[in-house]
């Protein structure tokens, strides 16, 4: 059966942020790529995380040349490609997860070229039909937003842009104006990957963004432990965990679920 959701797209994200805010915490959005360690296991992992009480998802679409990703996600998405992960299969995965009762917002996250190859308008239409709520393209700066902005607006899907510690005020305004749903805040100057410690400047950086950006802020890159989750939960509207969960998911569905559950618990206390 297909899960009936009251809202979808940008609206669904608004509801997600409002609920988290009412509970005095940030929303927790794990990243997981389709096809890792294999297709079935990636779906089982996402379903298990949904049941563990995460707030939303970034559904990773694998790409052969992921320039913003560190070794963990590079290796995982390479395995996924060898397992036959395609854009079409990733959309199918979202459709299947919806029929399995996953109701949290899901954003498709993938590099530009596979989406261009699929057809940008067709992709956004099919993503909406499959049950996705938004789109994050790490190599698409706001300057090139036009490629997806029209179709996302038509379909009511969020189009998320990123900001980084290197972004100046002008770029903060640019991303804030272009983004719908939320702004993805890259916590550090670097590529994805678990880090032992969060950068010391984080609080000031978030404050600087708050001053000129009027969209929810979701922090990603380097968050890997329940302690870090608790720490960022005080600062932002949401946070993303990728590499640490991908590494756990490579071991077993249970390992990923347990890590996610410990983070869910950490931000609720």
């Amino acid at each position, binding site marked *: 059966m297909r899960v009936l959701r009251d809202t979808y797209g940008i609206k669904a994200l608004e509801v997600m942020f409002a609920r988290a805010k009412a509970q005095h915490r940030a929303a927790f959005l794990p990243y997981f790529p389709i096809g890792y360690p294999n297709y079935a296991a990636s779906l089982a992992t996402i379903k298990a995380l949904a049941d563990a009480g995460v707030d939303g998802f970034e559904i990773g679409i694998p790409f*052969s*040349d992921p*320039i913003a990703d560190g070794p963990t996600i590079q290796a995982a998405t390479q395995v996924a490609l060898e397992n036959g992960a395609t854009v079409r299969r990733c959309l199918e995965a979202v459709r299947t997860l919806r029929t399995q009762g996953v109701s949290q917002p899901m954003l498709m996250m993938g590099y530009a*070229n596979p989406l261009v*190859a699929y057809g940008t308008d067709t992709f956004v239409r099919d993503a909406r039909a499959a049950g996705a709520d938004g789109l994050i393209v790490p190599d698409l*700066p706001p*300057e090139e937003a036009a490629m997806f902005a029209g179709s996302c607006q038509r379909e009511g899907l969020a189009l998320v*842009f990123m900001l980084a510690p290197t972004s100046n005020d002008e770029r903060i305004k640019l991303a804030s104006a272009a983004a719908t749903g939320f702004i993805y805040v890259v916590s550090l100057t670097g590529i994805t990957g678990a880090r032992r410690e969060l950068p010391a400047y984080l609080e000031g950086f978030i404050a600087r963004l708050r001053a000129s950006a009027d969209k929810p802020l979701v922090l990603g890159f380097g968050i890997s432990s329940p302690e870090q989750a608790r720490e960022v939960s005080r600062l932002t509207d949401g946070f993303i965990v990728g590499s640490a969960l991908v590494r756990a998911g490579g071991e077993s569905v249970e390992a990923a679920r347990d890590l996610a559950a410990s983070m869910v618990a950490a931000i609720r206390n």
Partner: protein
Amino acid sequence: MAELYIRSDISDLPDARGYFGEYGGRFVPETIMPALDELEQAYADAIADPQFHAELSHLQRTYTGRPTPVTYARRLSEALGGAQVYLKREDLAHTGAHKINNALGQGLLAKRMGKRRIIAETGAGQHGVGTATAMALLGLECHVYMGSVDIRRQQPNVFRMKLLGAEVIPVESGSRTLKDAINEAMRDWVTNVETTFYLLGSALGPHPYPMMVRDFQSIIGTEAREQIQAETGQLPDACVACVGGGSNAIGLFHAFRDDAATELIGVEAGGRGIDSKEHAARFADLDISRPGILHGTRSFVMQDSDGQIMETHSISAGLDYPSVGPEHAHLRQSERAYYTMATDAEALEAFQVLSKLEGIIPALESAHAVAEAIKRAPTMPRDSVLLVNLSGRGDKDLDTVIGILGE
């Protein structure tokens, strides 16, 4: 006041967003977007500064050995029995290839910007050697990413880079060739952007690189255009250059862009032939190559039906790349330039022909351009002039060629 050395005509492409028609742009993670803005501004300031031109011009003359000559290939022309073939001798530039032109230009820019840590990618090793050389000269720290497959087939250049004081970092991801070296260099840049200058070696990547690399390489065509007229009293009927990323080709073509009677011909790597699918002919095989986005720019990209980047093949590491500079995509679309290809076998044959008839051992990359001259010259009248960009010398390729031809 020194003459402005790099001609920068504001009516030229790219446009303000870095587009050459439909191709180009900036498709990179946000973290490096501010660095691209900074680079664009610093480059604009530099080329408006006569001091920068004077410094670069002085190094080109006293260090690189410019101008490089144009050589009449008499015996080759006689053997072909058609057009008179002339060679623009970038193989005689210091380090043995045109890559030094860009490395010095960007190196001076890095120094101006106060960046002391330089990273670069390399395929054949020519850009790595050019960069390592320029950094030794300028006293800057140099790290070169190189695919482990390329390291194996270009040993002499690896040794050269190390000798010049550069660190060569092997890249083990993906196909372990140029494409993956660029991925790693971009990851390094994303991580160290505040202290690091990415010295990109070809006319590709995000704006302003395709423009900046073209401008630094345009000295090739600017010199050749004067030299060939002085030598023959006419403009060439055709200019031929090999195209990997396309920096030597765009450097030659740029000066001739308004000479409508001069045909511009780019030669891609046909590898084992188009039907084999083992090649790097982005414009020749439209089954597997179409407009897409790789390494920050929109251009033709060899990819599967799902948009995953395909591995390419060429006998020459410098042409072994699945995309091509965006300005070439535009020149092709606007029909100002024509693109063809030469196979590994044709390049290898041309490599030997030029060695035997002219006493010039070309780089395997440049041998692709020579192969096209061998095909084309016989179809042209005897009073016509064909100018070939001999972008590099072939010493670095001797191991590869020995491996194929034997002793």
